[in-house]
């Protein structure tokens, strides 16, 4: 199982590196068409940033791609594999390649703070993973991920303001405690909904298996949105004054 998942994860990883192909194209485009003297290193940094965002998103989203594409859920679920084992074998290789990317980011330094952004990418991976069982429309799914990631980002800013305001200056990157807390508020209910769904997951149509998302994830996200709306004005006013 692990070998297959390593192979699948490597394939996804290589597919996500495709944006790097833009580097020679952009270089040639600049040299012969727009003459802006782009540096290869700059083009690489932008392309690499795209890869960094795309990989965790796709790794989480497509974690069950082979089962969906090959119609192999029935086969997988009839094998003598426990649900935690299936999940561990699927998540492990994908996390490995995410860390490979982050190590590369550490070496290349496209970010100001690799640790902080690395954490953000991990959150993006987990949001995509926790939602992957629930989607029926890819457009809605990506909108959901975008909304939830934005919610996490905004909440970490607001928590930063609410809990550590006296110690920080305005508009700085939220500290790691705020990020951890915001991630926990979002990921715990999402993760719980995902796990409860996956624990009992079978080959029934998806619409019959969404109970945990409807009764746990959705109310939790709505509550989080409500709290965000309540505090966002204060935070906004604070962050835009003197």
């Amino acid at each position: 199982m692990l070998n297959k998942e390593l192979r699948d994860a490597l394939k996804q990883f290589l597919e996500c590196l495709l944006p790097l192909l833009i580097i020679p194209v952009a270089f040639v485009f600049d040299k012969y068409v727009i003459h802006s003297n782009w540096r290869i290193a700059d083009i690489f940094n932008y392309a690499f940033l795209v890869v960094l965002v795309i990989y965790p998103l796709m790794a989480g989203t497509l974690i069950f791609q082979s089962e969906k594409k090959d119609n192999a859920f029935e086969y997988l679920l009839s094998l003598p594999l426990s649900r935690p084992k299936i999940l561990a074998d699927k998540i492990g290789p994908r996390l490995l390649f995410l860390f490979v990317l982050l190590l590369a980011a550490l070496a290349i330094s496209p970010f100001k703070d690799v640790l902080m952004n690395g954490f953000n990418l991990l959150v993006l991976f987990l949001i995509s993973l926790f939602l992957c069982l629930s989607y029926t429309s890819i457009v809605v799914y990506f909108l959901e991920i975008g909304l939830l990631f934005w919610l996490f980002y905004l909440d970490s800013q607001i928590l930063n303001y609410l809990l550590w305001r006296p110690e920080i200056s305005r508009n700085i990157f939220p500290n790691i405690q705020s990020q951890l807390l915001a991630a926990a508020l979002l990921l715990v209910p999402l993760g719980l909904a995902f796990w409860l769904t996956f624990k009992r997951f079978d080959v029934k149509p998806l619409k019959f298996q969404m109970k945990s998302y409807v009764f746990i994830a959705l109310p939790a996200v709505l509550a989080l949105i409500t709290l965000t709306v309540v505090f966002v004005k204060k935070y906004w006013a604070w962050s835009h004054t003197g």
Partner: protein
Amino acid sequence: MIEAKDLSFRYGKIKVFEHFNLDIPEGQVCLITGINGVGKSTLLRLMAGALRPAKGEIVFNEKLGRNPKRKIGFISDSLSLYQSLTVSQAIDFHKSVYGIDAFDDSLIKHTKISHGQKVKELSAGQKVILHLSLILSIEPEVLLIDEIIHSIDSYLRRLFLEALIQLQTQRPITIIMVNLNFHDIEHMVERVILLKKGTIAVDEKIEGLKAKVKKIISTSPPSGLPILSQIDYSNHSEYFIYPFQNEFRDRMKEGEIVDLNLTEIVTAFIGGEYA
């Protein structure tokens, strides 16, 4: 060997099984039949673990150990396998999941399957043979076979059934089949279970069933006999009687009593469902 205990299952609001019970002893070859949508494949999927019951449980003999799935082979009608893998990768995957070293590919050698071919490139029949080969490699105690036999060509069907018969002669193996085409498997089946609206309508050993279901060819309906279904022709009708008793022979004033094979028996029952 396998027991469905107080099993309940539904698709949303559609109830399939409610407090369903069934016991299949070790070594029995059992045929589950019924009209489309009655829950035959659902029952197999519940037994295989591909579906989870809302209530109740499927209990396996302790002989199958702590993880009964290690000794259960399931061939579904959707031929579910990792289609993107090559045959060789599919075999390796299966071996790694079950922790086995050996794989006997003698069966697939007869089917022009090459190890480098992708599973999705195989015909339906070749996929069935590949899946059966994978299952045989785990030395199963229980085989669950969904409605696939009729979808493969006669050569592969013979190969498939010969492999099953050979397996049966080696050791007692419990086989549960869902099928609507009974001609090929008639000689293997010991017990027939007819499902009706989520319950067992008929549960008989094959000899008993053959004795209890008869066809009467007559120009007028046999009075006082339990007619299961009937087929009308221009100058006569065929009446399928269940349960038939020998004393009926004396009561009959006209008509001919005909013995039935399994296909005709099950067709009569299914015809009765639609009547």
